[in-house]
């Protein structure tokens, strides 16, 4: 016997309650980092939208075994009372879900997902204070899971003026450890990729970290753009038709998609052949079968590359300042590539930085330093699943030895890669790894090779210097032996001999230095030409690959 209520509809909240891994809320360490990420990303986005330089305070308090309280306070505009409970107490309420705009959170389930997680693990509501330079409102907030509705358990107005949003939420089944995947690392990387943000962090051991902003300019707002016509699929073409005011299919496509002009429709009609006549086709006539045919024809039709205006990279200047400020390297090089597209339709920009020495690399407990790769997607740090990520693979495919980085794993190097796109191709819902799109990998590789070339000269000079010092030390070690032996053989005192031997050593090293500089001058240009040639070869190789792909695309 099946009872009727077993067939009841599940709410989105209920779905996510059962599938919390989709929100990145799995694993004790990972969950806590994800929670901090969701709140902080929301705060930065809110501040930027309001034109405020973000100042975020994060505090983690350990309440018990695997039991933490998370405080996040920003200086943004807050959320007005009417929308506050909905924005945080209802899943999938974000304003960005159906827009092609480069933003940190893409699905609007982040913060409310965390509040749901808090409720699931502690049974307690989340405390929120919101204000915008006037009376502020205090709320204790949960989620009615069955109805996916906010559940306000307490609400009052505070006399104190407050500007911003303050969230305090308790969690169990989470943990904090010294790790390169913890909240501290997340916040540090966030500060590097967002030089206009100041972040203060109090860790569970009561240690304070402050990452001061390096620039006082809020990055320009990304423009909203229509999706490029080549990125459309059958279902989207059909569904979006409903929300357009146009009557004809051509009219609908023109106002919904990017890069569709009369020339495009001429070509599209050629691709469609006599099967289907687009002209005068009304939206009502559009069904699944026709939509499928149109999408297939679109793939065969030549299109103009998408607009890249919507992409806002960190910029070379800003990244330079934040690297200087936070990594304090001996040397570094920052590079932003020109925008391009992958899969023929999605614009993206790659930014890289190679930072050497100073606080670069990851300091281990035993005092040794390992290289580290900082991955970012639209300025958001990707801390998890490094092995599955196209960025990691691109970094590892570089022949670092060519750039005098002999032992890449064990050098004080930080590699920063930021991928900007309106649509980052993540490998999974956890949004921590970028999929292997050849165009993206090629761009990252080219950027890294160019930056590595700049770094390599410095490193090679440094290594040579190290070798020279080592040699000098060796000569000196043995000079004591020679002085001792000569005193026995000749009777001349060691004290008299040693300064003379030292002088001979110094003279010899100076002579070598001069000789080397002379030779260096002669071979330097030749050498540089060689490296550039090699890279050009590689560039044409990947370039050809790209052309080939594009050709395949239009010939299909």
């Amino acid at each position, binding site marked *: 016997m099946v009872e009727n209520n077993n067939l009841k509809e599940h709410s989105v909240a209920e779905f996510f309650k059962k599938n919390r891994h989709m929100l990145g809320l799995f694993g004790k360490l990972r969950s806590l980092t994800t929670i901090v990420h969701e709140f902080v990303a929301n705060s930065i986005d809110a501040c930027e939208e309001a034109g405020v330089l973000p100042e975020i305070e994060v505090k983690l308090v350990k309440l018990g075994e695997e039991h933490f309280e998370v405080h996040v306070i920003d200086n943004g505009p807050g959320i007005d009372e009417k929308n506050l409970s909905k924005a945080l107490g209802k899943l999938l309420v974000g304003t960005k879900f159906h827009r092609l705009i480069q933003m940190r959170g893409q699905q609007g389930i982040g913060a409310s997902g965390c509040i749901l997680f808090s409720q699931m693990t502690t049974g307690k509501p989340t405390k929120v204070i919101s204000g915008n330079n006037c009376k502020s409102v205090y709320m204790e907030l949960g989620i009615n899971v069955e109805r996916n509705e906010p559940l306000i358990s307490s609400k009052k107005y505070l006399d104190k003026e407050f500007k911003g949003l303050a969230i305090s939420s308790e969690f169990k089944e989470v943990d904090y450890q010294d790790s390169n995947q913890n909240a501290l690392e997340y916040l540090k990387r966030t500060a590097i990729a967002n030089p206009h943000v100041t972040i203060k962090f109090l860790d569970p051991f009561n240690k304070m970290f402050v990452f001061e902003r390096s620039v006082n300019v809020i990055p320009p707002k990304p423009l909203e753009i229509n999706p490029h016509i080549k990125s459309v699929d059958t279902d989207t073409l059909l569904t979006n038709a409903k929300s357009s005011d146009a009557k004809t299919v051509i009219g609908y496509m023109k106002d919904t998609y990017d890069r569709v002009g009369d020339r495009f429709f001429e070509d599209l009609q050629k691709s469609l052949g006599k099967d289907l006549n687009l002209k005068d086709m009304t939206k009502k006539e559009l069904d699944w079968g026709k939509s499928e045919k149109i999408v297939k024809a679109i793939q065969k039709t030549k299109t103009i590359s998408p607009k890249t205006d919507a992409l806002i990279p960190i910029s070379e200047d800003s990244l330079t300042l934040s690297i200087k400020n936070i990594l304090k390297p001996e040397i570094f090089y920052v590079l932003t590539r020109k925008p391009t597209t992958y899969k023929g339709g999605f614009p993206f920009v790659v930014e890289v930085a190679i930072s050497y020495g100073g606080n670069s690399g990851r300091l281990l407990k035993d005092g040794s330093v390992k290289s580290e790769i900082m991955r970012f997607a639209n300025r958001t740090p990707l801390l998890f699943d490094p092995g599955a990520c196209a960025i990691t693979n691109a970094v590892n495919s570089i022949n670092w030895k060519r750039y005098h980085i002999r032992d890449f794993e064990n050098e004080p190097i930080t590699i920063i890669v930021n991928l900007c796109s309106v649509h980052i191709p993540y490998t999974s819902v956890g949004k921590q790894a970028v999929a292997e799109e050849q165009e993206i990998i090629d761009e990252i590789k080219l950027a890294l090779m160019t930056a590595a070339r700049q770094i390599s000269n410095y490193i090679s000079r440094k290594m040579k210097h190290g070798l020279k010092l080592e040699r000098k030390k060796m000569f000196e*070690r043995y000079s004591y032996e020679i002085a001792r032996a*000569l005193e026995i053989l000749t009777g001349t005192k060691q004290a008299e001999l040693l300064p003379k031997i030292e002088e001979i050593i110094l003279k010899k090293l100076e002579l070598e230095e001069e000789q080397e500089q002379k030779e260096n001058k002669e071979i330097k240009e030749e050498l540089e030409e060689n490296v550039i040639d090699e890279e050009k070869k590689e560039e044409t190789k990947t370039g050809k690959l790209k052309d080939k792909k594009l050709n395949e695309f239009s010939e299909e």
Partner: protein
Amino acid sequence: MRNEKSLKELEKLGQDTLKMITKKEPPYVELPVRSLSNIFFDEKSKTIKMGDKTSKRYFLNTAHTRKYAQTISIASEIKKIIKEDATISIRDLYYALKHTLKGSKENLLENQSESDPILEDLEATLGLLREELNLTASTKGVIAGSLTVKDGKDIIDLGKMGSGGWGVPSNVEPETIDIKNVDADFVLFIEKDAVWKRFNEDKFWQKHKCIIITGKGQPARAERRLVQRFNKEFNLPVYALMDADPWGFYIYSVIKRGSISLSYSEEKLATPDTKYIGLTVSDVEKYKIPDNVTIKLNDEDTKRIKEMKDYPWFKNKAWQNELDLMKKRNYKLELEALSRKGIRFITEEYLPDKIKNKDFLP
């Protein structure tokens, strides 16, 4: 005085170095090249001799620095020893100098194989033997025969040394070892200790009026020097009894002509009159030795045969035939293989027959 001469040479080395340092020039020592490229076969003495090629060992050449410091240090240590009028072994010398370099974990000498070749360098460059530098090398050779020696104040009858024989001391120069009452017609230089024991047990030296000596494999210089003295001072012919393999041939070659690394002193060590009495591959037919006691040649053997065919003293018909035959038959054999014909076959039949027929290789 001999030691005054050594002291003078060592002090000169010190003064030369001091001069370079005072002139602010990077110091170096000039050493004769002790390698194949700098030896030649001297027709007059019929031994290997060192040529006049030299190389410089520089303090400030990274590849030389360590060796340079070791060379000067060893020279200074030897001066100390001579001053104290002591004689020490080359192993003592190694330990006396083994110490850690200032500000490092590195030792001036890590093991004796570092100090030994440098000592040889010094011998070659100073033109002095290690014995003249108050140094001794450990020896392992033994000897027996009808003769007496005076070693210091002790007079020793080498015919009454029992089954072990007399251990050859490291310094056998006439100043130390006086040889007397020699009642022998020849010297038999045996490669292997086990075979020497067979000859001693059978009192071969008594029956055949000879001196038997072994260096237990590659002989030390004392054994070679002693044999040279028997040959030069008492006109005794020297016969070498070796395994019929490239290694045995090589030891014979060192006894007769000298070695590359000691080429600077071979005039005092080699015995060019030495004759090769056995064992040879052609003996297999001559003495009806069964095939199954032979050993197949390995790659190293084949390589050595090829090299030896080019040695000037093997450039005669007899040796070329022997080397070709060994290569053709692709086998070698040990002296002990003769035991297959009976344990006393070697002392009672094989060797007397060889001596009687003067069946030698040159």
